[in-house]
């Protein structure tokens, strides 16, 4: 019983970490810029397709495809931010929703055009396949890898935000945009960098997700709901919030399906409604 519980916790945590990488960027951009970017999932999809192209088309190793996915998503997102999205910072949230949904439509059509509707697959390197035996438990190697990547990202983000100059600037811009600008901070540039970072992480998440959930042109829509749930439950603009929110959702999802499969598909939504009703700002939300 104990070992089953441990397995379930492990699997749920790994799934949660995948959600965390996919959604932490949206949490930061939403919290920082108040920009509702429903196209966040589309950047995840972009990262996924870049990874597939790099591995299958160019024969790159998996570990090289991951940073490529990050960089491509970050680069294209900053291009879009500079040319299009920044025009919307001042317009209402509904216009942001409409515009970014438009972007998702266009992205899905382009992906269909370039890659077709077929499910994309990648072949992981041998050392990431199969499972290992740890203290009598069989743990999936790839899941361990995902957890390691997510923990590294969390560490870097927390360190970067708390200890570096850029982090201090970002925090200043989040806390009070006007004062930050008054003090001579280039808020626009900070926004662009943050946006690129957030989208890049989504791209990385998309690449990591292929092995677990697959990749096709509907990815951008499909994972939008999960990403929004993580962001709202965790609380806007909080890395720790996204981390714990994603972990909680992943674990509850897997544990719910394991222990009470009859209501397995409901649990995640019930949790969403309950948490937000009690804590409308999410678990770690400040504003």
């Amino acid at each position, binding site marked *: 019983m104990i070992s089953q519980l441990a397995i379930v916790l492990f699997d749920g945590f790994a799934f949660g970490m995948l959600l965390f990488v996919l959604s932490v960027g949206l949490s930061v951009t*939403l919290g920082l810029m108040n920009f509702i970017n429903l196209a966040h999932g589309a950047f995840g999809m972009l990262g996924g397709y870049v990874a597939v192209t790099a591995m299958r088309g160019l024969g790159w190793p998996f570990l090289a495809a991951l940073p490529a996915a990050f960089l491509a998503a970050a680069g294209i997102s900053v291009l879009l931010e500079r040319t*299009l999205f920044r*025009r*919307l910072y001042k*317009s*209402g*949230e*509904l*216009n942001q*929703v*409409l*515009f970014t*949904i*438009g*972007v*998702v*439509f*266009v*992205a*899905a*059509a*382009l992906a*269909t*055009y370039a890659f077709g509707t077929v499910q994309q697959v990648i072949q992981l390197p041998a050392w990431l396949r199969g499972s290992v035996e740890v203290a009598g438990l069989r743990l999936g190697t790839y899941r361990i890898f995902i957890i390691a990547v997510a923990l590294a990202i969390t560490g870097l983000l927390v360190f970067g935000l708390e200890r570096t100059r850029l982090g201090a600037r970002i925090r200043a811009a989040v806390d009070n945009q006007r004062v930050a600008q008054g003090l001579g901070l280039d808020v626009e540039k900070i926004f662009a960098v943050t946006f690129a970072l957030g989208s890049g992480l989504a791209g990385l998440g998309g690449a990591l997700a292929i092995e677990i959930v697959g990749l096709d042109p509907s990815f951008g*829509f499909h994972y939008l*709901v999960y990403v*929004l*749930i993580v*962001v*709202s439950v965790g609380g*806007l603009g909080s890395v720790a919030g996204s981390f714990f929110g994603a972990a909680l959702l992943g674990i509850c999802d897997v544990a719910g399906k394991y222990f009470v499969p*009859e209501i397995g*598909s*409901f649990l995640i*939504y*019930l949790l*969403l*409604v309950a948490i*937000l*009703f009690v804590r*409308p*700002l*999410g678990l770690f939300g400040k504003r």
Partner: protein
Amino acid sequence: MTVEAPTLADPHDWLRRRSRWSVFEIAFWVASLLPFFLFQTYLPLASQIAITALFAVSVDLVLGYAGVVTLGHAMFFGLGAYSAGLISKAGWGEPLTGLIIAGLFAGLVGYIASFIIVRVQHLALIMITLGFCLLTYELANSMSWLTGGTDGLQGVETWPILGVFRFDLWGYAAYGYALAALFLGLVLSRRIVHSSFGLSLRGIRENVRRMPAIGSDYRGHLQKIYTISAVMAGCAGALLTQTTDTVSLDTLSFQRSADVVVMLVLGGTGRLYGAVVGTIIFMVARDQLSDMNPQYWYFWIGLLLMVVVLLMPRGILGSLAQLARRRD
């Protein structure tokens, strides 16, 4: 969204003036009869546009007027659709009573949900409406003994309207029925938004905190409009069931919730006819584009949405109205 200040002399007179029918409105309703004579082969599409427009108007009441952003209104649409279908399956295929019962059931659920809805705002509000919608979807899927699950509800058979007008292959009866319902829905909505109740809703939209300060029971108002909107959305769902004799899980889907908000914002929020115009443009564009290329049509829809936001930030109707005002 500026509302000209009521003259202190006679607020009722001001409200009455605002609610007078304009030439445009009358012209619109006359034009809505054109499909019967000019585009008979498009009647099935026209009837589904009218149904979706009614749904969009119901969302406009809460989103455009009361500022309650919802991503889960398909819940009421679907509840209405399933109630109408189940009543018909149980042996009572009379459309008008079926429509009323379905609307009331959706309204009842809406009233219960409203106790939670009025207590949250912003992102939490959006996500809770979405959560309710997804829960209802999963519930309908798991209760497949009642709903037919993913295959859809089978055995729905709607009787002729008033015992005379059979739902025909061409869609004459369907369009007439849906159009009449849309008209009634709009007349009712006009009365609501041009009443003092409608004004207090706008007050809530503009500043929630100030409303209690001036002695307005804002939660009560919100619950009321949310329930009314649920009834209307439920009726729209019931209409879809009755005009097609099909009900499926997709009436409850996130996609449907999101699409209706897209259509509403496209046309322009807070002006009722924006919902109708947005629906017409979205659905006609979709129909025409997908006929030209069924695989990539959504590329052009996406582009349309982006261009409209950049060039017409108040929605199509909103921006046209602004343009017209500037001319005056």
